[in-house]
């Protein structure tokens, strides 16, 4: 069951990511990315992180990507031009990416046994629910980082407002 779910959504993920790569219009890329994110949300859920799955949908798919789409629409960005700005990206970058992929895949397969197996359902001990546990840790142990991120968000909002404001 889990393998089926994983395969379906993994394929969906990769297909979405590749579509992001091959689509030439940014809005299509954005929608592909939404597909990737939704699929990832399902995968999170199969890994027992249902809160993150919801957050993924709400924050990433629902807010961040909408923002992207919004900006694409606002700037009325067309299809991208085929300019050749960088040879380095092809000469050094693409082989590098291939090497990274090959290396990582090799290493993960090599260490497969040590990494263990995932089972469907909660990732934690089942005495407390996942969300309860997250909230407990977040609001006790990691309260300071949590508060700091709130400051970060505030700063980001102010920065975005200042940056995007039209000069008088």
């Amino acid at each position, binding site marked *: 069951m889990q393998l089926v779910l*994983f395969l379906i959504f993994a394929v969906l*993920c*990769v297909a979405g990511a*590749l579509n*992001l*790569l091959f689509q030439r219009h*940014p809005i299509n*890329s954005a929608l592909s990315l939404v597909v*990737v*994110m939704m699929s*990832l949300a399902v*995968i999170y859920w199969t*890994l027992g*992180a249902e809160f*993150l799955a919801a957050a*993924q949908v709400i*924050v*990433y798919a629902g807010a*961040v*990507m909408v*923002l*992207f789409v919004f*900006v694409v629409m606002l*700037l009325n*960005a067309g299809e*991208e*031009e085929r300019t050749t700005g*960088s040879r380095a*990206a*092809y000469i050094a*970058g*693409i082989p*590098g*990416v291939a090497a*990274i*992929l090959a290396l*990582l*895949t090799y290493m*993960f397969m090599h*260490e*497969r046994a040590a*990494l*263990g197996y*995932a*089972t469907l359902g909660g*990732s*934690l*001990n089942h005495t407390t629910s996942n969300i309860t546990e*997250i909230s407990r*840790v*977040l609001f006790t142990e990691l309260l300071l980082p949590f508060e700091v*991120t709130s400051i970060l*968000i505030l700063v*980001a909002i102010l920065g*975005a*407002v*200042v*940056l*995007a404001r*039209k000069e008088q």
Partner: protein
Amino acid sequence: MVPIAYYLILAAVLFCIGIGSFLIKRNIITIFMSIELMLNAVNLTFVAFAHQWKLVHGQIFVFFVMVVAAAEAAVGLAIIIAIFRARQTLNVDQINLMKN
């Protein structure tokens, strides 16, 4: 029973597609999206490891990544808008003020 390695390989694939798209794409917004894709790929590894070690901290890390990504998206898109206003283009090959 799916090996954790599969999740990690999926993450690696997504990450590499992210890098590749960063390399190939010219549109700055799309490039920004590929960054988000890479972040997501990394998040997946966090969740997978959180599952493996039965620890909630991996998930909380993902939570923080999301928050930061949201902030980053807000600021980044504002910058993109500012760049577009100044340069009338979104093509990164033409946004090379750093050169010369």
